[in-house]
Structure formats: structure tokens, C-alpha cells
């Protein structure tokens, strides 16, 4: 009983963290602050993955997002903002209209979630699963996900070469 109470407390703390820092990401004016709020939000999502017993997924989230994507974003900020101030401009009309659209989408999603009978009241059964890493490795390397895995590795290669091509400086006098 005690354990369940502590567990749900921690869950709500993670959920609150995630949502609050996501709100900061979309409202804060300074882009570096927004990037660091994004980091907290990514950690919060990793915590939610742990609650879903997706241990490998949580580790991947921290390694790839916090270690990779966030560093890329910070580099992008520093290479494009220069000595100018790093404030993000927002137009009032756009702000109101965008808020309206986002609120409508949220309302639609919430009504679908609360009105779908198959999704109602599915409790966490409390079963502790085995670590998923072994299972995931087998499914990717010799199971049904072998072909998608190879395709995605080619896609990564193409994306890296393309990124290097697009962002390189034009060399003068090159024929």
C-alpha cells in the first residue's frame, strides 16, 4: 500500500515536471532557456518510460535526445544567433490564433481519449517485466524487425551525408 502511494506520487511528479517544462519550452522568450527546458522535458519523458517498464527505451531517450539532439540544438543556437540577442519574436495575433488552434486540438484529443470505451480504466497490473534489452536485441537482429533496422541504418547514413553536404561552406575556385 505504502509502495503504491509513493509510486503514484513519483509518477505525478514526473508528469508535472514534463508538462511544466514543455510549457516553458513554448512560452519562454530566451532561446537558450527554451533549450534547457527542453532538456528537463526530455528527462521527464524518460522517467515516464521507466514507469512503463521500458528500460532500454528510457536509456535510449537520455542518450540520443539529451546527449545528441539537444547538443545539436545548442550548437545551432550558438552558430545562428551570434552576438544578437537570443530573444524569440512572437506576434500577438499569431499567438492568439495559434493558441486557439492548439487548444482546439487538445480538446479534440481529450474528448476522444475520454470517450473511447476500450481505453477506459486499464490499470497498471503491477507485473514486473523482465529487462527488455535482450528481447529487443533478438527482435531487431533476428526477428521481424531486421529489415526495418537495415533500412533505418541506410537512412541514417543518407541523412548524415546529406547534412554534411548541405552545411559545408562553398569553396571558391572549385570547379
Amino acid at each position, binding site marked *: 500500500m505504502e509502495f503504491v502511494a509513493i509510486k503514484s506520487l513519483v509518477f505525478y511528479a514526473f508528469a508535472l515536471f514534463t508538462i511544466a517544462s514543455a510549457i516553458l519550452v513554448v512560452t519562454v522568450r530566451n532561446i537558450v532557456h527554451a533549450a534547457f527546458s527542453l532538456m528537463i522535458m*526530455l528527462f521527464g519523458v524518460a522517467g515516464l518510460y521507466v514507469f512503463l517498464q521500458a528500460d532500454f527505451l528510457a536509456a535510449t531517450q537520455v542518450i540520443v535526445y539529451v546527449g545528441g539532439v539537444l547538443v545539436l540544438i545548442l550548437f545551432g543556437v550558438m552558430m545562428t544567433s551570434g552576438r544578437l540577442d537570443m530573444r524569440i519574436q512572437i506576434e500577438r495575433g499569431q499567438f492568439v490564433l495559434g493558441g486557439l488552434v492548439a487548444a482546439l486540438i487538445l480538446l479534440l484529443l481529450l474528448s476522444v481519449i475520454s470517450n473511447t470505451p476500450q481505453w477506459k480504466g486499464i490499470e497498471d497490473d503491477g507485473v514486473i517485466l523482465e529487462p527488455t534489452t535482450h528481447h529487443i536485441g533478438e527482435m531487431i537482429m533476428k526477428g521481424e524487425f531486421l529489415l526495418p533496422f537495415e533500412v533505418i541504418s541506410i537512412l541514417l547514413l543518407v541523412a548524415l551525408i*546529406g547534412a554534411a553536404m548541405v552545411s559545408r561552406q562553398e569553396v571558391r575556385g572549385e570547379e
Partner: protein
Amino acid sequence: MTLQHYLVISSILFSLGIFAVLTRRNAISILMGIELILNSCNLNFAAFSRFVTPPDDINGQIISIFGIVLAAAEAAVFLAIILSIYREFGTIQPDRTDTLKG
């Protein structure tokens, strides 16, 4: 913790991401909004894989991992394009790069 808790969290993240994409006038902030949307999608996959399918079926988690990889590739290409736009125009405000505007 029910399935609906996770769905509500991810729908909030999704609409915040839409809000960021619609209102921010800085390409990198738009990228952050897209990351929010992708995260909400991955969270949904993991939640459905935990609650709806049998316990030892973790296909949803693998789809989430593929989603993370795609997000990383997308961020790399996005930032490369932003860098070359910055070199060309001196700004990364999406409404200032209007050379192709008719």
C-alpha cells in the same frame, strides 16, 4: 496510473508542440516544437505497448526506438539546412526567407 494518464500527458505535449510550431518565429524554436510532437508520439507507442498488448509483446517499444532514431536524423538535417539558410540570408526567421514567394 491508467492508460488514460499517459494519453492525456502525450496529448498535452502534442498540442504544446503544435502551438510552438504555429507561433514561434525562429526556426530552432520550431524544431523544439517538432521534438515535443515526436516525443508525445513515442510516449503513446510505449504506453499502448504496455497497456493494450500482452505483457511480453514489446513491438510498440521498438517502434518508439525507431522514432527516436528518425528524430535524430531529422534534427541533423534540419540544423544543416538552418546553417545554410543563415549563411544565405543572415537570419533564421522563417518569414524572412521569402525568395521563392510569388
